[in-house]
């Protein structure tokens, strides 16, 4: 199975306090970048679908990762090549010249060129939280889609049985390939992904895998291609205009109460919530 995983880098959410706003623009200098966690789960899912669980160096298929960004976003791609992806593509753009729709349309062109059996993406990016690219891409391609996958079982690499968590249970959807699937956090639980190559009993360690040092070093030699955005879509103008940015107000200091009675009184008289 050939799988395409689009991924983006996000400012390290643990250092979100370093984000600054200057004259209505986001200042990204000095931020530490991390792969969007849900995209990392998508890469992990793609790897699990194309291996037998034990010989994780042997890929039974191909995993191609793609990102949109400036030159230094290649670090994110190299990291994914280190964990086991075969090939990477960087669509050259600035960080703030694109929106989900541009990405989806460019990805459509890329999918038509690469012809993957499956596009796996994270359910959303933790910076903008738009959660649009997967769905839009499926629409543009006219492919079936399953969103927020918590489990995936491959049925002979012809179809996927996708579990989605909903209130009070799990819905199972059967999507025929080629398809677009977006993944949720639970997809990286030990037994969430069943490939045609993996014994049913196999359990992965929780979470995404660690890249071995020699794989990190070998990743330098794996192919990484650069593509111009204009070569993928003639209409590269973002539809979303960001008018202004504002930092959340600084948190005010709290108050200590001496007992429950005072707490209740304050909730009534000051917070007016009870």
């Amino acid at each position, binding site marked *: 199975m050939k799988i395409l995983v689009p991924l983006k880098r996000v400012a390290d959410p643990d250092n979100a306090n370093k984000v600054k706003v200057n004259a209505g623009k986001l200042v990204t200098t000095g931020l530490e970048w991390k792969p969007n966690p849900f995209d990392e789960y998508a890469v992990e899912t793609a790897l699990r679908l194309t291996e037998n669980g034990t010989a994780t160096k042997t890929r039974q298929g191909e995993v191609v990762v793609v990102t949109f960004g400036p030159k230094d976003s290649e*670090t994110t791609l*190299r*990291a994914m090549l*280190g964990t086991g992806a075969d090939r990477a593509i960087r669509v050259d753009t600035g960080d703030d010249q694109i929106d989900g729709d541009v990405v989806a349309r460019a990805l459509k062109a890329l999918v038509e060129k690469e012809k993957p059996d499956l596009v796996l993406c994270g359910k959303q990016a933790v910076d903008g939280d738009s959660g649009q690219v997967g769905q839009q891409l499926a629409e543009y391609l006219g492919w079936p889609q399953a969103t927020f996958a918590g489990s995936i079982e491959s049925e002979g690499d012809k179809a996927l049985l996708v579990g989605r968590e909903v209130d009070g249970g799990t819905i199972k959807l059967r999507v025929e390939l080629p398809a677009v699937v977006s993944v949720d956090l639970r997809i990286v639980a030990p037994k969430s992904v069943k490939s045609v190559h993996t014994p049913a009993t196999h359990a992965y*360690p929780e979470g995404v895998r*660690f*890249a*071995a*040092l*020699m794989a*990190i*070093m070998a990743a*330098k030699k794996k192919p990484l291609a650069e593509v111009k955005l204009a070569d993928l879509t003639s209409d590269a103008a973002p539809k979303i205009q960001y008018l202004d940015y504002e930092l959340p107000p600084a948190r005010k200091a709290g108050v200590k109460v001496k007992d429950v009675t005072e707490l209740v009184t304050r909730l009534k008289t000051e917070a007016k919530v009870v």
Partner: protein
Amino acid sequence: MFLFETDEHAELRKNARRFAETRIKPHASAWEEAEEFPRELYGEVARAGLLGVSYPEELGGMGGDISHALVASEEMVLAGHSVGTVVGVGSHGIALPPIVRLGTPEQKERFVRPVLTGEKISALGITEPGGGSDVASLRTTAVRDGDHYVVNGSKTFITSGVRADFVTTAVRTGGPGHGGVSLLVIERGTKGFTVGKKLKKTGWWATDTAELSFEECRVPVANLIGEENTGFYAIMMNFASERIYLAAQCVAIAELAYRESITYAKERHAFGKSLMGFQVTRHKLADMASRIAAARALTGEITIRYVRGEDVTSLAAKAKNVATDTCSFVCDQAVQIHGGNGYMREYLVERLYRDARLYPIGGGTREIMNEIISKTEGYG
């Protein structure tokens, strides 16, 4: 960050941080207080790709060199908050190199591979109750008897000695002085090899430290590392890399104590302002930062020289002393900034202060480092 770090080091750092944040930090205090971390941790560290860093792939290692190992271990200290755990998990860093360098293929399979997968624990036994600085005068004897050596004597202060499955041991196979020393791998369970009680220490609590004794202990000749009576040279080679590791640990501990101090100085208030509001505090931190920068620069330089294959005997001694002094100074200042809390076990800097005390002693004392420097500088 060391100047030598590349994107590869950065990725490795991320892995080490993720591992230590989730698997060490939540238990750091508990393991330190219990004076033990779970044995399974070795396997987990191995599976996260962090145990075999700097060891050849053919032996089950992760490739890379000492620069990678230093980065992984620094980040585990910074993110894991338990120096004892990291040095305990890392005891193979001094036990394996002589085997990797001088061992036969069969010895490497038997001793190196299972340690790098986390199945076996290894230790290095040089120091004796009678003395550690004067290695050439060690008294544990190994007398050849057919296919075996008969070992008599004892070792002390052995890191991971309580749980070790084997100990790379310095023994006297020949006459007096350094020309009579050999390295012998002595396995747990060998008749006559007993492990004494776990020693109570100032710091490094999460790691076990043991006294070992050998009484008519018969060790197969097949366990001799390198040629008979050439062990002293191997031990000295090993000391050079050990001292680089120790210098890097000092940098890591100092860095952590410094970071903790910044956080504390911002949060703690006195006389109506934060501690950071006092110039005295800021200048303390500035001194700490400067010393760390110097120790890090020298540790980085020696690492590069070591990787290039230069003889770093003298520079390793200098780097160890500089880093050791930095670590002692910074941890002392960190406790001072924390005031009474800095003296309390609940606070990390209290532990780091105790951990720091080992470094001018272990791996060759501060005075012995100066002896080495005096000799190589040719003071006469």
